[in-house]
């Protein structure tokens, strides 16, 4: 069961219309009408920090650079969610999710994950196939496969009932000290529309990595491109990342104060809406009390926290979340219970 759990990527993207609210503009600005699927990148392989002999380590993927800071910030929970995970074998895992929500629709979701037999590292195996189906018939599916030792591919589709909303294919090449990826999103040969995203990230020094992103989108009668540059500096116990692009600026700073406390500061400025937002988040880890606490304060006067506690004799984990918007005086709270 360890294989299945370790190799599975984070949960597939939730269908639009679920109650999760995440503030702030996305990294890639996509014109309205296009939906950039938020498919999570493959899990970080257990690669050593540098190949023996080569001084520069592989920098990881482009999307992961802001991830460390984002993980510190809590996610807004809403309503009651019960997740039951059951591992049927070393390769196969099944999950049932029941969501009861006040803002969005309540529903049931069934998910299955299959992890294949080709082992590339101690904690990963390929191919990984994940599928998720809603009670209304909406499907999210992902297939991740390691084609060669350096090339990884991913195909993801997302449907809303019977209509295909997102379909994308992704190819990633990991070199010695660089990573490049090409993503083809919603290609439609008949209409002549689609999105192509190209990422490139290069290690300049063991601490510094620079990269760029190019997004080209095309629709019948309209086409455009957006570029952005990214720099990431890794220190002893901190990671600072800056992304500058046509869509705006996004800077994050992640700091590990001690093995219990991690801090993250995020600054986001969007050219399109001419708005800036700063948010400060912290994560407190108390393994002795089986407690994980994440809190955040925002420049939009939003205060939120999520408390996760493992109720230990049973394989049960309880998450309580509360988000309060002081300015608009609105409040949202939620409970997540995870079994297994």
């Amino acid at each position, binding site marked *: 069961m360890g294989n299945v759990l370790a190799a599975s990527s984070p949960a597939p993207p939730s269908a639009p219309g679920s109650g999760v609210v995440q503030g702030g503009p996305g990294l890639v600005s996509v014109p309205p009408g296009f939906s950039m699927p938020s498919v999570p990148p493959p899990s970080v392989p257990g690669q050593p920090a540098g190949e023996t002999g080569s001084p520069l380590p592989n920098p990881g993927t482009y999307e992961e650079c802001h991830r460390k800071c984002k993980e510190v910030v809590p996610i807004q929970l809403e309503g009651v969610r019960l997740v039951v995970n059951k591992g049927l074998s070393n390769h196969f895992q099944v999950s049932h999710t029941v969501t009861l929500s006040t803002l969005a629709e309540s529903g049931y979701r069934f998910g299955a994950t299959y992890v294949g037999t080709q082992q590339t590292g101690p904690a990963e195996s390929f191919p990984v196939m994940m599928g998720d189906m809603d009670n209304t018939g909406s499907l999210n599916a992902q297939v991740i496969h390691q084609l060669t030792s350096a090339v990884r591919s991913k195909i993801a589709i997302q449907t809303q009932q019977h209509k295909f909303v997102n379909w994308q294919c992704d190819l990633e090449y990991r070199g010695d000290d660089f990573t490049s990826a090409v993503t083809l999103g919603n290609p439609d040969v008949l209409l002549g529309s689609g999105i192509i995203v190209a990422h490139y990230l290069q290690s300049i020094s063991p601490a510094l990595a620079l990269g760029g992103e190019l997004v080209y989108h095309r629709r019948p009668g309209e086409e455009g491109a957006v570029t952005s540059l990214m720099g990431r500096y890794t220190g002893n116990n901190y990671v600072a990342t800056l992304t500058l692009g046509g869509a705006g600026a996004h800077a994050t700073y992640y700091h590990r104060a001690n093995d219990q406390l991690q801090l993250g500061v995020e600054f986001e400025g969007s050219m399109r809406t001419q708005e800036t937002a700063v948010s400060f988040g912290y994560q407190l880890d108390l393994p002795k009390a089986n407690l994980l606490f994440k809190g955040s304060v925002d420049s939009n006067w939003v205060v939120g*926290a999520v408390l996760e506690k493992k109720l230990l004799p049973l394989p049960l984990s309880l998450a309580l979340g509360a988000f309060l918007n002081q300015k608009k005086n609105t409040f949202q709270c939620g409970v997540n219970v995870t079994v297994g």
Partner: protein
Amino acid sequence: MAGIEELSPAVGPVDTRPPEGEIDEDEDEELDETFIERLWGLTEMFPDTLRSAAEVTISSSVTMAKKLYSFSRAALWVGTTSFMILVLPVVFETERLQLEQQQLQQQRQILLGPNAGMSGGMPGMMPPAPVKM
């Protein structure tokens, strides 16, 4: 002169002012309405600049006091709810953990004797073995 007529002595001197009682009534009526105004009228003895300066000072301090009151209300509410969300659960959990650990320590003390109750007590310390017959 013969044309001057003598008024009847009953008429008495011509009174151009109303009698005392009416004067008092009139002034009493004015007194009921104008007590505050009489006090206010007293301030008219101060020069204009002093009066306007005092008025500005008093009105601005009243406005500031109102603003301070409403600000402290809002700040108290924001502070309390933010503290409740961000800090309180962690405080509860750490207190609970401390209590549990204390309880465990106490139990260990009761079971194994006072010295063994300390976490990281001396490794060579053995509890007294029961005497077997």
